[in-house]
């Protein structure tokens, strides 16, 4: 138990200076790396033709450019708000799922778009599909108790959001994104098909339902003194589950565009 308490302290200490964004770079590149292993040859060729890079190269591009001239409007695309019934708000464009759906719909006729639009759209999709699966990127808008804040650990304040953004990294210290992706790319075709059932809207809704759990594992606005072994294990399971979902589903979306 002492070890787990230490784990929580060390983990949160390592996150204190982290600026809030989405999955961190490791999270995004891991998901993109997993996705790249599941692209059909044609999709892979098309992605490389338009991007002139691999998927992981551009995985964190939206974070890197969000505050740069011309891209400021994308800064609000990284999360999505839901109501008490886990439904997204109609007409809300500051919504990662909405933007991912809009862009994937536009990409159905990618042949009619300019190369630069296809390139930017791909960069958006690579990032947004991952963001939809980041446990803290669902905003429970009307529920103040789930409003992301901070928690205190032995009297010191930490950001809750930063914790979940970096869990892939934390649980795989010293590993590179492609090695992490390979480690968890163990699902059968049947299991992958099951994960990829539905569409972006369904995935966002299920994530919204299920990610409520994280607020019970590491309560916010509280004084955390230790993380139980059970909760610790569960946090890791959620991290890996969401990473797999993000990777397999990103591949599905891209294959659906380029290799119908």
């Amino acid at each position: 138990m002492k070890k787990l308490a230490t784990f929580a302290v060390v983990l949160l200490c390592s996150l204190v200076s982290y600026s809030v964004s989405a999955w961190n770079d490791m999270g995004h590149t891991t998901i993109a790396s997993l996705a790249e292993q599941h692209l059909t040859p044609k999709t892979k060729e098309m992605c490389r033709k338009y991007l002139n890079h691999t998927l992981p190269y551009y995985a964190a591009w939206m974070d890197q450019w969000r505050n740069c001239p011309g891209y400021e409007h994308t800064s609000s695309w990284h999360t999505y708000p839901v109501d008490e019934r886990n439904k997204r708000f109609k007409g809300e464009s500051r919504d990662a799922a909405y933007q991912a759906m809009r862009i994937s719909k536009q990409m159905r006729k990618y042949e009619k778009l300019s190369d630069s639009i296809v390139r930017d759209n791909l960069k958006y999709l690579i990032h947004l599909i991952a963001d939809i699966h980041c446990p803290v990127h669902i905003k429970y808008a009307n529920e103040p108790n789930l409003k992301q804040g901070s928690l205190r650990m032995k009297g010191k304040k930490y950001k809750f959001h930063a914790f979940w953004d970096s869990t892939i990294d934390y649980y795989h210290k010293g590993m590179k994104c492609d090695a992490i992706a390979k480690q968890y790319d163990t699902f059968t075709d049947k299991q992958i098909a099951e994960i990829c059932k539905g569409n972006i809207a369904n995935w966002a809704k299920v994530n919204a339902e299920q990610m409520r759990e994280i607020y019970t594992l590491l309560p916010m606005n509280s004084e955390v003194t230790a993380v139980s072994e059970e909760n610790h294990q569960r946090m890791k399971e959620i991290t890996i589950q969401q990473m797999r979902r993000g990777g397999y589903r990103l591949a599905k979306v891209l294959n659906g565009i380029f290799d119908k």
Partner: protein
Amino acid sequence: MRRYITLAVSLLFVYTATAWNKFGQQSIATLAEQNLTESAKAQTTQILGGSLSSAAWWLQSVAKEPEYQHTNSWQFIHLTKELKSTTSFTEDGVVQIERCVDILKHRTQHSDSTVVVTLKTLIHLVADMHNLTHICIEGVEYSNKNFNFRVSNGFTGPKEVITKLSWRKFWESNIVNRHATLSCELLAEDLMVCYGPEKGNFSKGDVRHWAADMGSLSAPLYEWAVPDYYMTREQHNRLVQLNDKCMARAGFRLAALLNDIFR
């Protein structure tokens, strides 16, 4: 010219230089390895007892030892105003690369240990000469100097965080670490996807041509890069792409040299 060289040398001896951090050096070596001919790969593996990547950091790892301290200055190249390599300064990177190539081409005349050390040195120096802050250009004041500047996280107002960085550290570590979540193999694959079609162009010419090419990329930086310069996030992002190009050049050119030596 003598004054210029004295200044450069005195600067370099107090600075244990590395052009890129370990990740950068190994990624360049990995890209080179992927572009070796079968013959070159077999021979370099036999000499090194492993991959180019495994040898890429060796020179840096011994650079602080008294017997290797003199190699610190080899990690920089020196160009005239016309971007021509100097021939009079024997501690220059280009001169040392040419020396290594000569030894390796006539390797049967040298001991095994000399060949091993020379090959490891060559792998490192070719990467080094492609780091934009390791190119000292006569008359370009700050190309010879290290200085601090400021880089923004891109936010405006109270969310903006401005980090003070050393110019060389920025190019040696910070900018390469943008890709630090990728393995060397994945970064090399990416560089191949993006710059593979330019491989032939990059590899044309000899080491002195390559030095002049790097000078032409480096010199424009100093039109704005001065102490206390404020770098925007956008500019930072664009410099990452410029650095990628330099790494690709380094990898392809190292492969071209080795393919020629180990035909």
